Structure formats: structure tokens, C-alpha cells
């Protein structure tokens, strides 16, 4: 009897093993591509083990296709791929850093841009980076990138010679800003572009076609990514830079914090803001807070009564406890916004007005608008996965209740919130909370246009981005924005002035609430040096190439 039991349990185990062997095949390629660890490049004295940087990051990978990429994987793409140029942080001596382009110039009318490419650059797959490769990449991105719309002004891309590319525009646009975008601008090996055209799953096996300092060595979904340095990188390698970068994908900030303090990782991308103090008091770490690309906006549904009345919207804008929202929602890591453009990003201006928290004024405006003591209800939706929104939304509810406006809070997954906002007007939310960031460093043609430029003849006036969720259409605002965007290259000074006018009109009409610009906080161990923050590249908190162990 016992023998039977033994035989059966062995059979059971064997069966389970067999089924898992079958599944092993799907994971094998990622791990099998691992090169022997002892192989050391000649420039550096041979070391027994590679120098490894360990990072915890929340960012997930939605695609490894550099053309399609339009999400958090940008954090990794930026270390594997390169653009023609990179925009520097605000306040830098030079506005741009040349990457694959060494120099560039624009015609006076802003319609022709010529880029002179760097020579001797190799893609990770051995192809040569040249004008043809650039044209092929940009053409692919204009055609089907996740962010293809950024190239809208471009009429054609032409190869002038092996290392010169000419862009012809149909209207003047700041192509340098566009070309330095984090999405839809990577220069990709022609071989990879052909391969993915033939097989859409080409990148799934953990290959890449970039020129950047690191290449993808292996990828295990939801778990980890291993990058290893590209020995032939055009920028060269100095002793002390990391050979391998191991990224642990860790969604929970608390877990990241514990991994960092427990020494399991060298860097953690997200620390719970309320725990930053733990590190501020620790001599082994420095805590660095920086402005960011992100801000929180709340859209009033101007198609619903009584939010169609600007006076009511102004009243509600006065009833937002901005200070408390920053204190609670961001743990103090934020500054009250001036319109929808985050500080540090063009065309932000200190001349744009802000609302204060003033309940008396809010009550006055409400009664002017014919709603003494409020008496209406608002359905406010926010993304349940966003902790900050979940934290500060109840503050809005409590504050509005003091002026007699009843708020129903409805947390929902962002996708459902988005679907609701684009659906039947009568069923739409009355107020929509959104964390926003521009696609590239031009919040004039992005934030101001995407979120508030209404198009079309009838409600809901959604524009091409679908982000104008106030469903607001104001001809004066649209005119100001058209002028400002048109003059960005040809007359930057007037362009800025027009943008400021547009923003002040926006703040006055209050189709939305401008809560706060977030700040990013970094906890950097003293053992790591070279950290350079660039707010223009959200999600890319570290360029691995910059970092090295402190001496």
C-alpha cells in the first residue's frame, strides 16, 4: 500500500516537472543570451566580477519597440537608444547636448532644419549610423510611433549626404525641441526596423537596435531587466563606469525603500515621501529634491450645469485648499501651479495668476452666480492607482462641502475613468483629476493645447489628443494659442507673451483647477557619484552612463 503511495507521488511530481519544462521554453531565450561573466574589455584591467549597479524601479515595460514606446519604459529606452540631440536641464549654459547629431541649423523662417551627424557611430547590431538610418528611423516614427504626432510639422526628411539630413517643415516649429523628445525620436538600426516590420514580436526576445551606452541583456517581465555596456559606444568608457545594470521592477515604494536601506539595491527610484526623513538623517545618503515635468490638473465638466458658468468655476477654484493638498497629497513635495505648465518647462511664467484658498470669496462668487449656499452636487473621478490623488481628493470634498457643494468621490482605474470621460455627455464625470506631463519639452504646444484647445463645432469639442476633458471651447484662447505656437521659432519673445496672455485667460475662465507642480525626491547613497537630474526626461531618473562608484 505504501509503495503505491510512493509511486504515485513520484508520478505526480514528474508530471508537474514535465509541465513546467514545457513552459521553460518560453523563458529560456532571455536567460540563455547571457555572455560569460569573465569577458573583460581591453580598456579596463580585467576584474573577477563585473561592476554591477542595482536599481529598484517601478517602471514597467509595455513594449521594447523603440518606435512604439510611449510609456514608462522610457526609463530604460533612454539608456539603450539615443536621439539626435538631448535637451539640457533648465539653467544649463547650453540648451542642448549633441548626441547623434554634432551640429544643426534652422533657416530664418524655421521651415528647413539641417542636422550634421556624428561619424563612426555603430548600432549594437553592428550597423553603421548614417543619414539613411536617421531618415529610415524618423520616417518610421512619423508613420506609426506611439508619439508620431510630435512630427506633425515635418513635410519630408531628406538625405543630403552620408552624414547630413534635411527636414522640411510645412509650418515653423521648434524641431530641436521635438527631436530631443523622449518618445518617437530614437534612432534605430535599419536592420531592426526591417526585422520588426517582418515580425512584430521581434523585440520580445530581448534584442535592441540602439546606439546607446547600454544594451538589453535579458528581460523577465514584471521582474527584472539586465543591461550590459556596449563596448563600442561612441562616447567611450572610463574606468569605474558600470559594466552591468540590474533593474528590479518593484511596484511598491515601501518595498523599494526597504531594499535600499537593506542594501539589496544601490538606488531606488521611488521612496514613500513620508519616509524621506529616514534618509535625511542618515549620513550614508543625500536627499535631493528637484522640480519635475509633472503637475496635477482637475477638469471641470463645462458641459454640465452649473459648471458651465465661469463664476461657479472661479468660486470652486477659490475653494481648493492648495496648501493642504500639497502637504497631504505630495507630503510637501510640490508648489502650487501657475496654469497648466509646470515650472521649468517652456512657456512657464511667473506672471501667470494663481487662485488663493479663500472660502469667503468662493461663497460670494457662488451667490453672485445664483447659487447662494451652493446646493449642487459634483461627481469627481480620480485614478485609483494614483496614491496622491487618492490622498488629496477627500480634501476637495471636505472643502467644497463648506460652501455647500456636495462632492461624490469616485475612484476608478485610469482606463475606466478615461473611457467615461470620452463617453455619453450626460453620464460623464463633473470633475476629472489628472496627472499630466508633456510629451516633449514644449508645454505650449502640448499642455496648453492638448488640455484646453477645444476643436469641432459641437460638444464635447475633443481635440486630437482627447485630453481637453473640460470640453471647453473658447475662441479667444484658441486664437492666442494659434499665434503663440506659430511664432515659437520665428518670434520667441512675442510667442512667450501670447502664451502668458492665453494662460491668464485660462486661469480667469477656470475650466480647470491647477493644483500643484510635483517635485521629484531622490535618495542617493554617498557611495554613488555622478548623479545628474534632467527634468526634461520624466521617468528617466538616472542615465546609467553618468553614474560611477564614489572614490
Amino acid at each position: 500500500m505504501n509503495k503505491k503511495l510512493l509511486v504515485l507521488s513520484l508520478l505526480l511530481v514528474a508530471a508537474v516537472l514535465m509541465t513546467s519544462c514545457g513552459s521553460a521554453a518560453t523563458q529560456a531565450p532571455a536567460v540563455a543570451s547571457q555572455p560569460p561573466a569573465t569577458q573583460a574589455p581591453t580598456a579596463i584591467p580585467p576584474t573577477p566580477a563585473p561592476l554591477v549597479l542595482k536599481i529598484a524601479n517601478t517602471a514597467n515595460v509595455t513594449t521594447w519597440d523603440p518606435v512604439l514606446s510611449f510609456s514608462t519604459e522610457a526609463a530604460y529606452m533612454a539608456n539603450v537608444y539615443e536621439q539626435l540631440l538631448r535637451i539640457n536641464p533648465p539653467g544649463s549654459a547650453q540648451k542642448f547636448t549633441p548626441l547623434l547629431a554634432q551640429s544643426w541649423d534652422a533657416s530664418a523662417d524655421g521651415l528647413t532644419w539641417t542636422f550634421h551627424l556624428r561619424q563612426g557611430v555603430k548600432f549594437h547590431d553592428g550597423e553603421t549610423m548614417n543619414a539613411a538610418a536617421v531618415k529610415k528611423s524618423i520616417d518610421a516614427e512619423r508613420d506609426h510611433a506611439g508619439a508620431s504626432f510630435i512630427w506633425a510639422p515635418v513635410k519630408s526628411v531628406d538625405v543630403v549626404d552620408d552624414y547630413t539630413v534635411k527636414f522640411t517643415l510645412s509650418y515653423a516649429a521648434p524641431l530641436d525641441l521635438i527631436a530631443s523628445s523622449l518618445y518617437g525620436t530614437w534612432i534605430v538600426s535599419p536592420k531592426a526596423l526591417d526585422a520588426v516590420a517582418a515580425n512584430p514580436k521581434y523585440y520580445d526576445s530581448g534584442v535592441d537596435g540602439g546606439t546607446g551606452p547600454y544594451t538589453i541583456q535579458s528581460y523577465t517581465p514584471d521582474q527584472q531587466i539586465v543591461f550590459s555596456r556596449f563596448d563600442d559606444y561612441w562616447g567611450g568608457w572610463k574606468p569605474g563606469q558600470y559594466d552591468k545594470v540590474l533593474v528590479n521592477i518593484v511596484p511598491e515604494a515601501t518595498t523599494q525603500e526597504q531594499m535600499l536601506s537593506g542594501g539589496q539595491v544601490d538606488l531606488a527610484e521611488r521612496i514613500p515621501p513620508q519616509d524621506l526623513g529616514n534618509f535625511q538623517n542618515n549620513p550614508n545618503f543625500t536627499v535631493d529634491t528637484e522640480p519635475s515635468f509633472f503637475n496635477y490638473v482637475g477638469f471641470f465638466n463645462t458641459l454640465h450645469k452649473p459648471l458651465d458658468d465661469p463664476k461657479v468655476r472661479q468660486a470652486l477654484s477659490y475653494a481648493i485648499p492648495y496648501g493642504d493638498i500639497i502637504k497631504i497629497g505630495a507630503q510637501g513635495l510640490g508648489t502650487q501651479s501657475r496654469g497648466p505648465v509646470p515650472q521649468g518647462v517652456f512657456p512657464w511664467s511667473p506672471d501667470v495668476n494663481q487662485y488663493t484658498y479663500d472660502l469667503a470669496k468662493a461663497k460670494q462668487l457662488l451667490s453672485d452666480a445664483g447659487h447662494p449656499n451652493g446646493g449642487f452636487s459634483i461627481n469627481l473621478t480620480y485614478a485609483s492607482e494614483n496614491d496622491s490623488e487618492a490622498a488629496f481628493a477627500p480634501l476637495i470634498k471636505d472643502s467644497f462641502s463648506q460652501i455647500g457643494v456636495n462632492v461624490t468621490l469616485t475612484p476608478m482605474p485610469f482606463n475606466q475613468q478615461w473611457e467615461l470621460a470620452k463617453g455619453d455627455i450626460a453620464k460623464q464625470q463633473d470633475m476629472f483629476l489628472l496627472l499630466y506631463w508633456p510629451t516633449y519639452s514644449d508645454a505650449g504646444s502640448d499642455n496648453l493645447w492638448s488640455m484646453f484647445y477645444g476643436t469641432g463645432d459641437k460638444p464635447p469639442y475633443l481635440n486630437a489628443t482627447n485630453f481637453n476633458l473640460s470640453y471647453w471651447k473658447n475662441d479667444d484662447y484658441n486664437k492666442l494659442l494659434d499665434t503663440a505656437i506659430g511664432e515659437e521659432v520665428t518670434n520667441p519673445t512675442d510667442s512667450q507673451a501670447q502664451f502668458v496672455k492665453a494662460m491668464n485667460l485660462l486661469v480667469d475662465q477656470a475650466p480647470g483647477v491647477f493644483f500643484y507642480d510635483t517635485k521629484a525626491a531622490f535618495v542617493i547613497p554617498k557611495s554613488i557619484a555622478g548623479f545628474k537630474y534632467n527634468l526634461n526626461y520624466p521617468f528617466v531618473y538616472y542615465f546609467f552612463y553618468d553614474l560611477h562608484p564614489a572614490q
Partner: protein
Amino acid sequence: MEIDTTVSVPQVESTRTFRHVLAVIARDPLSLASTIVIVLFVLIALFAYQVAPHPDEGAGKTNVSNTMLAPSWDHPFGTDLLGRDMLSRVIIGAQPALIVPIGVVLFAVLIGAPLGAIAGYKGGWVDEIIMRVTDLFLAFPSLLLAMAIASALGRGLDKAAIALVVSWWPWYTRLTRGVTISLKERYFVEAAQAVGVNDWVIIARHILPNTISPVLVQATVDLGTVILAMGGLAFLGLGTQPPAPDWGLMVSDGRTYILNQWWIATFPGIAIFVVVLAFNLLGDTLRDIFDPRQYR
């Protein structure tokens, strides 16, 4: 007249079991303590708004100046990020975490028990159909089925409750059917049949009242599990939606603050543990007296 006398027999029988149960509970200190804890928690839940020191904060009103205070005399369980009194949050959170699961089990019994009685009494194809359907439901791990249904219905306490009812009723159908089959042979049922009483009347007046004891025992045993399941759904974000309080949801929120503000997750977690423990201890005793599984 004859029918009336036969009715009184099972009534006596089930009262006797009930008294017996009470006597055993009263003798066992652990069971007695559990019963007291349960009654206490249910009372607190029912009168949550009267009991809570800060009922408005418990329900969600913010008080920013009190953000994340450690436990003290004023706030024995501390306060959360929005400065809300955690004791009040835990007390008011007892409603979705405790009363709703009781309701879930009640509905599951109301759906499951009659079906089981019908299946057991009628037998044949009626039995076959009902039992095959319950087999299908029982083929899923209950929580997984509840998750799938909750995600199809959308988020919310009401939807989570519906999902749990849908995945729990078949257990009572199965149990009641077993009891019914054993009752069918008993003299009072046969007597009623002999005098030509309608089947439905027999089920309603003779069978169902006699299934109450085993079903009640099973329901008590199950309540702990259902409370855990409800807490689990809330923890995953599929149950109660903020800013309403719920134990599972509070543990989930508190995870972010576990390193420095340990109290935010700790007290709601203890609340779940204590209540479930009480139900399980009581259920354990009840099962010893009266094993409902004998009918499965």
C-alpha cells in the same frame, strides 16, 4: 389536526438542539468569550456612529492638522494621513467588514437552502439539475470566482457582496440537500405525505425548519471565511471604495506607511484577526456538537 401534531415534533427537536448548543457554549470559556466578542463587535458595528469618538472622521472627513499622529489618549489607534481618527475608522469600518459578510451568508443561505431542500425532497431530474449547477459553482475556488464576478460587475462594496453571495450559495444547497434526504425517511414527513399534503408545504413547513440547526452551524463556521474573503477583496481594491473605511482597505493603505506609521495597518489587521478568530473558535465548538458535514 393530525398534521398539526406532526408539525410540533420537529419544532421540539430543533429547539432542543438549540438549547443544547447554548448550554455547551456556556460551559466552554473559550466559546463563551468568542460569543461575547462577536456580540460586542456586532453591536459596535450596528451602533458605529454612536460609539465612534469621531464619527465624521470615521466616515471619511479629513482633519489635516492631525496628520499621522501616533497612538495616544486622544487617538488610541493613532490617525492616518488625512488626520482621521483610526479608532473611529476601525469602528465604522466594521460595517462593511462584519455586517456585510453576515448579510452575504444570510443571502447565500436564503438562496441555497430552499434549492437544496427542493433537490433533496424531489429527487430525480430536479435534483440532478440543481446539483449539477452547484457542482459547477463549487468547481471554482470561491475567492477566485468572486474576483472574476466582481471584476465583471465593476468595483464597489455592493458588487463584492453580490460576487460573494454568488460563489457561496451552493455550499448551503449541498448541505440542505443532505439533511433533507435524511429527513425524508423520518416518520413525520412520511405521515404528511400519507395524508396527501402538498410537496411544497412539506418542504416549507416540515423540511426547512429542521435544516435550520445544521445550516446555522455551517453559517457560523463559514462567517470567518467570508469575512476574510471580504477583507481580501477590499485589500485588492475590489470591495469598499475610499474614502469609506474598511478593514481590508485600511491594511492595504497602511502598507505604504508600515515602516514609520505602523499603527495605520496594524489596528485594522488586528480587528480582522480577532473577529475571524472568534467566529472560528465558536464554529469549532459548534462543529464538535453537531457536525453538519455528516450530511455531505
